[in-house]
């Protein structure tokens, strides 16, 4: 990929940005989701309404926040509400169109782990934990996951279900009383996965320029199903790259 004029993180972020529509309300996690949402709001989705879990509603930060509670979010928000209010009146009430999450592990049914690698009682790696993710995954109308693609991250079964994707398959979300549709797309640095409409199993539906399907299957910890004719992600436009790079600075270029 070294011949391409953009990095794999950049195509991932741009692809994620493209999946947000103008006018949507978006519950934004920090890191990759925040970068992608801010690219979207500066390109095709100027009316994207970003909510960070610190209670900043309609934030439009002039630069990327390092945390979900940076001052720039409060200063640019339509209004700032308390944490109980953002979770109860906004998220739980089903007012958010799309929840935009990162993850340490995701599995075949798009269940998400941000808690531990290994056994919970005696973990190999202790991760930060749940934060707002379980209820974002439960209550947003849709969820989009953005994360880098490798076999440690894409596992057959997550070590810990921090946030429910499609559980163990069809009907599980309904049975669990989860009101939103759950993950509709997982965007990685290699391609795009979506749950099969029937089986809910994550299926490769798109690959980024220069990426082979075999490579994606190789980087996935289960026998990945592949759509008949996976879409090729359109290359990042100059405008997209320039916005992205102005946000991330040299580090990501």
């Amino acid at each position, binding site marked *: 990929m070294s011949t391409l004029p953009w990095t794999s993180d950049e195509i991932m972020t741009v692809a994620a940005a493209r999946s947000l529509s103008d006018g949507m309300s978006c519950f934004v996690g*920090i*890191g990759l989701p925040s970068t992608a949402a801010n690219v979207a709001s500066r390109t095709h989705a100027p009316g994207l309404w970003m909510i960070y*879990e*610190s*209670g*900043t509603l309609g934030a439009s930060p002039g630069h990327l*926040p*390092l*945390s*979900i*509670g*940076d*001052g720039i*979010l*409060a200063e640019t928000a339509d209004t*700032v509400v*308390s*944490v*109980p209010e953002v*979770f*109860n009146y906004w*998220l*739980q009430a089903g007012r958010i169109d799309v929840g935009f999450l990162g993850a340490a592990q995701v599995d075949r049914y798009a269940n998400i782990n941000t*808690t531990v690698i290994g056994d*919970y009682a*005696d*973990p*190999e*790696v*202790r*991760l*930060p*934990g*749940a*934060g*707002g*993710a*379980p*209820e974002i995954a*439960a*209550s947003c109308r849709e969820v989009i996951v953005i994360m880098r693609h490798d076999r440690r991250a894409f596992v057959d079964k997550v070590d*810990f*279900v*921090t*946030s*429910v994707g499609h*559980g163990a398959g069809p009907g*599980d979300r309904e049975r*669990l*009383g*989860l*009101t939103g549709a759950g993950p509709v797309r997982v965007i990685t640095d290699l391609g795009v996965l979506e749950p099969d409409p029937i089986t809910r199993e994550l299926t490769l539906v798109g690959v980024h320029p220069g990426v082979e399907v075999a490579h994606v299957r190789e980087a996935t910890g289960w026998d990945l199903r592949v759509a008949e004719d996976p879409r090729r992600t359109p290359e990042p436009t100059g405008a997209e790259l320039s916005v992205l790079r102005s946000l991330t600075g040299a580090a990501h270029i």
Partner: protein
Amino acid sequence: MAVPLDEAVGRLVHDGDTVALEGFTHLIPVAAGHEIIRQGLRDLTLVRMTPDIVYDQLVGAGCARKLVFSWGGNPGVGSLHRFRDAVTRSWPVPLEIEEHSHAGMANRYVAGASGLPFAVLRGYSGTGLIGNNPHVKTIVCPFTGQELAAVPALNPDVTVIHAQRADAAGNVQLWGITGIQKEAAMAAVRVLVTVEEVVDELEPVPGQVVLPARVVDAVSVAPGGAAPSYAHGYYERDNSAYKDWDAVGRDREAFGAWLAELTGSTGSEPPSTSDPVGKGA
């Protein structure tokens, strides 16, 4: 009404207490956390939605026996290595953990502030947080039959927060991202507030939360007391300090040196060494 911070901590925080030092990225009561370390408090149950580096420091210093939380990390940087070391290697002392989602923790504080024994929310369903946590149960709506999650109220012995200002009577004013501070304070038995300054009159500010003096037990003046987090209208977040903590927190020895400097002790040893394995995490 303002009292020196060392006196306030000495009076309000005791070994074995359940203590919440709250702040959601903004207005984190770091100075008070450091004073708790300096006074060598032990066996605390530390509570916070977003334990970050000051909790890493409290855990590394051996102040806590338990952590109740929903997201423990160094925001924008990565993991908390003292926290990891305590959880995975019991260093310097074993750390029990009880973990929730943000929505669960927020509603636990709301119930605590409301004088209710529990809160109801749509949450936890299907997650691993249930199996590992006896503090999440199911409740059935008596009108619709729907199943929902129930979590017990959180009522810390002491809640510590940092605010921009107080007046002489002890009324406290904070603004910007106000997070969960009001609920955490009102849920607590005792409340300690550090402030940037005490002023004659709390001029109203848009987006403010005012905590009336009667829910505040002590106000201590601690300018810069939220650094390296920020105080809206006073100073910015010191992002480099968060990044720099990563190297210190990763290494028991570096942490020991940091701790010695904080507490003014001569050696660079950690406060206890119950883990014979030595330098870890």
